[in-house]
């Protein structure tokens, strides 16, 4: 029904710019200008200073902590998100609709609240946190595991929601055909189903990764702000801003922006190549 606004093709006239100009201006003002400003600010004192800011020990640690926790989270999310999507699409069970609705909940809960919830559960005062710390000697809160759990929570929907529609469109007859040809269910999943799910799996995982490296609210509550220990890149940027280290803030921000952009482009690429392979 996207034709409701379509009023026929027009080759000329002022009116064709009536909507385009404001929209282009809006995008420029809202997205491009801030990006340009921070780009200009980061390179203000030359590339050498920018690199110096990024390679400071505290900054380096924050960046590497951010990247490896996000990577670990992405791996777990990929496997569990795939399994969740498969169960939600292929099986029927009571409460399926409710569960399907719950999956989007992390998107609408303020991430700060997510952090508070996790501290209550895994913190020293929480039953589970107490048990993990005292019985197993495993500290979650104010430690990297807490970061991974917080990131898992906030990016849970990304993989599930990208795989779900692809799986729904995947003809069940392919799996039936494999069965009549003698293939056992797991073999069928690996050779017939999974290759079709790989593109959404990859792009969903990349999206959750890029979402995770910028996460602030949940992480700052769960992990605290301990330089060289639990301070992530986003938290480091806040610290830099507060201590009026404007260049440091800009430099790390630029790095985060660069990684996110790269990932976004890759995800798009994967999607495109998949489409050209199957839908020509």
């Amino acid at each position, binding site marked *: 029904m996207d034709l409701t606004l379509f009023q026929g093709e027009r080759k000329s006239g002022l009116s064709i710019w009536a909507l385009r100009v404001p929209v282009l201006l809006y995008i420029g003002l809202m997205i491009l200008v801030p990006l340009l400003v921070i780009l200009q600010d980061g390179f203000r004192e030359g590339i050498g200073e920018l690199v110096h800011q990024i390679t400071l020990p505290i900054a380096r640690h924050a960046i590497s902590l951010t990247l490896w926790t996000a990577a670990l989270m992405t791996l777990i999310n990929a496997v569990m998100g795939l399994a969740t999507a498969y169960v939600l699409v292929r099986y029927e069970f009571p409460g399926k609709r409710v569960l399907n609705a719950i999956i989007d909940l992390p998107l609408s809960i303020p991430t700060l609240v997510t952090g508070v919830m996790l501290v209550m559960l895994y913190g020293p005062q929480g039953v589970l946190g107490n048990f993990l710390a005292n019985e197993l000697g495993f500290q979650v809160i104010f430690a990297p595991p807490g970061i991974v759990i917080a990131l898992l929570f906030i990016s849970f929907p990304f993989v599930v929601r990208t795989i779900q529609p692809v799986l729904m469109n995947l*003809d069940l*007859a*392919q799996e*039936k*055909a*494999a*069965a*009549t*040809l*003698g*293939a*056992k269910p797991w*073999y069928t999943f690996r*050779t*017939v189903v999974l*290759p*079709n799910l790989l593109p959404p799996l990859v792009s969903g995982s990349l999206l959750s990764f890029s979402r995770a490296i910028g996460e602030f609210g949940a992480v700052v509550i769960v992990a605290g702000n301990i330089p060289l220990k639990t301070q992530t890149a986003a938290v480091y940027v806040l610290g830099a801003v507060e201590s009026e280290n404007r260049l440091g803030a800009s430099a790390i921000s630029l790095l985060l922006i660069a990684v996110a952009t790269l990932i976004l482009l890759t995800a798009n690429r994967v999607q495109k190549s998949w489409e050209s*392979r*199957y*839908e*020509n």
Partner: protein
Amino acid sequence: MSIRLENISKYYGRQVVVNNVNLEIDNGEFFVLLGASGSGKTTVLNMIAGLIAPDQGRIWLHDRDVTQETPQKRNIGFVFQNYALFQSMTVAENIEFGLKVRKMPKDQRQRRRDELLELVGLVGMGNRMSAQLSGGQQQRVALARALAIEPDVLLLDEPLGALDAKIRVELRRSLKKIQRQLGVAAILVTHDQDEAFDLGDRIGVMNYGRLIEVGTPNELYQFPKTEYVASFLGSANLLLGQVNGHEVFLGTHGFPLPAEAYDLHAGSRAQILSRPEDIDLAASEADLSGLPLGKGKVIEIGFNGPNQHLRVELPPIDGVRAISPVAPYGIPGFVMDVNRSPEQSTSLPIALNQPVWVGIRRLHVLSHPGLNFLILTDGSLRSQSALIQGGYLARMAHAQVTILGIGPDQAKIESHLLDARKDVGSGMAALNTESAPPPFKKAVTKLVEEHPFDLAILGWRPTAGLDQPEQLLQTGEQHLYLATKPTAQLRKALILLASGEPGKDNVIFSGRFLRHFGATATLLTVLPDAEANDFEMIRVERFLKDGQKSLARFGVQADLRIRQGEVLESIQAEMKSQEYDLVVLGAPLPDRSGHFELEGVIKTTLTSVENCSFLIVRSHQLQRLQDSFRRI
């Protein structure tokens, strides 16, 4: 024998989608399952492949019972309507898939793949992705993939349904050629008659889950047994004539009755089929080459290909009624479809509205007469049971239905009949509605004297009394079904036979009726304590075994039960032991004065057995035994 299906049934909830299907397919045979969508044909195919488990029955592949086996173990080639190629694989990988699963060495695998590519005419396309192929090519790949594993049987689920007309015909030809070449037994499911006639060594026609008839294309077209098949395949002129002795009469002209029409007794009606190409048109009666039907008028002319297609209106003939084609409203007689070859059209050119003589060159009598049901309604809640159950019964039994609405307010009853049409549901062979003012008996009598029915269906509760059932049994010759609840299910019937009663008619009608539902039956006779000696027991048992045999002839399985003691108590005990949906009772015809009363066992059973519907079957043979009924 490649495939054998034994009493296969499948239910989705209470809905029966495959109903007691029996089928045997020979080695190398190309069998086509033909039916409208929703007829259960694809479900049958899926059950053979093991993709759906049957609720009842057994499946045999090459004399091996595979009912419990997974699809992986059945060694079946399955071709899907939408190809179902593995999208992430090349054509070659698709074809090799089943061989890889079977761990065939790579070089053998590749050799076999190349053979198959050649067989289906796709040499050199092995490296393409499936999305790069046309629909026809994709289906060729799917066929090659299914054949690669050297399947014991090949199952094809509307494989040509998604293709363009031209490619369809082309692929149809290569499909048949390949099947012949490999000698593999194949079942193809389709709703396309041309396809079925072109491909099938034999065709099975399915409708509402039942396999209605099986035969060669010629048998089914020229000599169908059932009305459904006669009218489903091609176009048919179906007339209702009268049986007399060993002849069937259309008006005053008699034809010999075929031997297989065993169900037809003297005086009963017979369905007569004449194909449009078997109808002769001539300028005068003397020029007709077939039996003259009368002088008619051409009301439609058209062409299908080189042949001329006409529709002719004929005046009514005494004792003859048309089933198909249905005469347009306002035509007192009937219409017939005629096909004429180009030679016929040139030797006798015919114009619209021209009077012509119509004759029948060849006709065929259907040996399985269709059932004709009457559903009664007065708009009450009780009638709802009749409409819902009647709709279900008629759909399953392929019966023609007339709904008679009886009520003082004509407009109100007409609007109720509109709703009633919805309640009985779609999928009827034929559905008419009539309305009449009360009294009940007068309305019914008027209708059944015009059109004879096999069965009247009445919504009924014991509290409603026996007046209406009795009135229905006092007039006409129809049997009576009392629907007691608005649920449509008929899985198990209890047939009551009084000891010593010949009971042939009611057992035969029970068989004719129950076979449509895949229902099983229990034949019950109650012996009063005083008569329960060994001699009597043996006699009753032999008598029940005869009944069991009669039912088996209709494919209805029946248990035998003899109980001793008081009649009603015994019936109630039997009802408790199993869940019966229906109790079948025999009743005599009214005596000569038209007097009839429900009494004795029938009356007590009707008024005291709860939670099931009743079928009261009327029997000529019971006449003599009316006294013995009174005695019990």
